[in-house]
């Protein structure tokens, strides 16, 4: 018998995907009403359409235009804004610093968060107190963190500056490029340690006690136990945190940077997000700023997709 299987055309399949209720309904039992579901999702859809899709489309559109700073129309320039951004040395330098900043902040805050989590998991006495202290600053807003950091590194009163002076290092944060970079990284790491600590600690505490006991017998040395047992078990959490930390360093540090460079970005290190803001609002270069926005959108979308993949993996591991 040669009954050829019915292969739906791609177009038909697309239409099915588009209009059928859902291949994997969230519930086996569902209401079947024509109008009600639309009323329930309407507020969210409306907000998303006006405040997410409209601006996002506008960012893409205006990235192809050169807008007159005084508002006299705009000229279509194709990919010029992208070309200009990617070929300017200033943009490249800032991209370079952003990469360095993200890498350093991620490495340090992941490393310190892991170290503290392992130690907090190991001690018996005072574990609760340490935990409270280590996560307490988790939710403080970036600009507040920036303000406190600025004071810590103040040239006259900052304790960090005074401590550095003891080693003959005269820190001039806000004036010297390298010193400001060190201060920014320290402050950004400070804010992110609690987040990593929480995740690593809960990852550690999810390790079954049978595994711990077996490891205790197999590997006498603490370091070997950490390397051969704990680290592989924490790897999925670590990969997940890696993406979160990179996203944090790229975007959520805006408030810290804005407060710490005090509107004097000229000779201070800044990140790409800060540059989007500067060019758009201070420089009135709407096309250039939009092109940079779109570049960042691509980067962050890629990171988020990677993050979702890792979450899936994490569930399989666990």
């Amino acid at each position, binding site marked *: 018998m040669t009954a050829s299987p019915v292969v739906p055309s791609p177009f038909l399949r697309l239409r099915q995907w588009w209009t*059928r209720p859902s291949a994997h309904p969230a519930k086996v039992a569902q209401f079947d009403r024509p109008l009600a579901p639309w009323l329930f999702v309407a507020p969210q859809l409306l907000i998303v359409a006006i405040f997410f899709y409209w601006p996002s489309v506008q960012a893409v559109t205006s990235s192809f235009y050169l807008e007159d700073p005084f508002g006299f129309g705009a000229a279509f320039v194709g990919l010029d804004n992208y070309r200009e951004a990617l070929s300017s040395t200033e943009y490249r330098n800032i991209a370079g610093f952003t990469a360095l900043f993200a890498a350093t902040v991620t490495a340090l805050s992941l490393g310190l968060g892991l170290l503290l989590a392992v130690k907090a998991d190991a001690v018996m006495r005072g574990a609760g107190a340490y935990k409270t202290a280590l996560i307490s600053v988790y939710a403080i807003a970036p600009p507040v963190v920036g303000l406190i950091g600025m004071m810590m590194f103040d040239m006259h009163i900052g304790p960090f500056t005074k401590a550095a002076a003891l080693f003959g290092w005269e820190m001039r944060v806000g004036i010297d490029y390298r010193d400001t970079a060190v201060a920014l990284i320290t402050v950004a790491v400070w804010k992110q340690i609690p987040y990593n600590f929480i995740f690593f600690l809960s990852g550690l505490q999810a390790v079954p006690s049978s595994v711990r006991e077996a490891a205790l017998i197999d590997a006498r040395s603490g370091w070997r136990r950490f390397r051969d047992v704990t680290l592989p078990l924490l790897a999925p959490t670590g990969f997940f945190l890696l993406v979160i930390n990179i996203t944090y360093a790229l975007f959520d540090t805006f408030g810290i940077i804005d*407060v710490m460079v005090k509107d004097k970005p000229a000779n201070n290190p800044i990140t790409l997000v800060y540059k989007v803001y500067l060019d758009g609002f201070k420089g009135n270069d709407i096309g250039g700023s939009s092109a940079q926005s779109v570049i960042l959108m691509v980067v962050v979308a890629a990171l988020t997709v990677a993050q979702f993949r890792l979450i899936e993996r994490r569930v399989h591991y666990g």
Partner: protein
Amino acid sequence: MQRFRPFDHLILLLGAAFLVTPVVMAFMSSTHAATEIHMNGLFLSPGGEGMATYEKVLTQKGGFTGTVTGARMVMNSTILGLGFALGKVVVSMLAAYGLVYFRFRFATPIFWMIFTTLLLPLEVRIMPSYQVMSQLHALNTYWGLIIPLLASATGTFYFRQFFKSVPDELLEAARIDGAGPVRFFLGVLVPLSRPMMAAIFIIMFVYGWNQYLWPMLMTTDERFFTLMRGIKTILQVWIGSQIPDYNEAFALAVLAMLPPLGVVLAFQRLFIKGLTESDK
């Protein structure tokens, strides 16, 4: 069974000190006079100027035009936090209900349309968002401050996960009783979701309270300034002054970090659970 390990405690103590000391210093220094800080540096012990400083920060009209007090900024931050948290809970709960409990055409594209917003933070589309708001004449309004921040599906995501875990039998039982979608929602699902609603409300309140970039762009009228915006202003006023008002800046920082600190300390368990389980 376990012996006391001094080295582990040393590392933990250093870590805790590194994280907590700056916050303690900010608080303690806010109770000293600016000249004292200028001469001696930051403090780890309380001073006697606290009441006067906080009273001044809360009641004295500051800023460039002299129309905003610290109390007003606290109020604006509270409005932003509460409005955002309330909006988030209501909008995302309704949307999650529609997505989980109904069979309807276009459900899949709607789902993707809503959840794509998780991809892009506001920061990357900040300029066009501002332009849209200015076309809508929403600059310097509370709704313009709050509603655009709702355009991310985090809350919807949490509620969707939660609704999916609710047993199907509840809906079947409600249907046998003749309950329609609205009665099922208000009578069964909302009471069931109370702890979830509370958790999301608290987390979103802090998130709204902490907003910085968006309020900074949306408010040029100082009557709408939030505490975060005020921090930026007080630093700008400093430039050029001989002895900056360190104490007042610290007082403002303390006011701005009280709710985030308080919430994390008071709801420590909930926070850890919510954070580490929500991502699955």
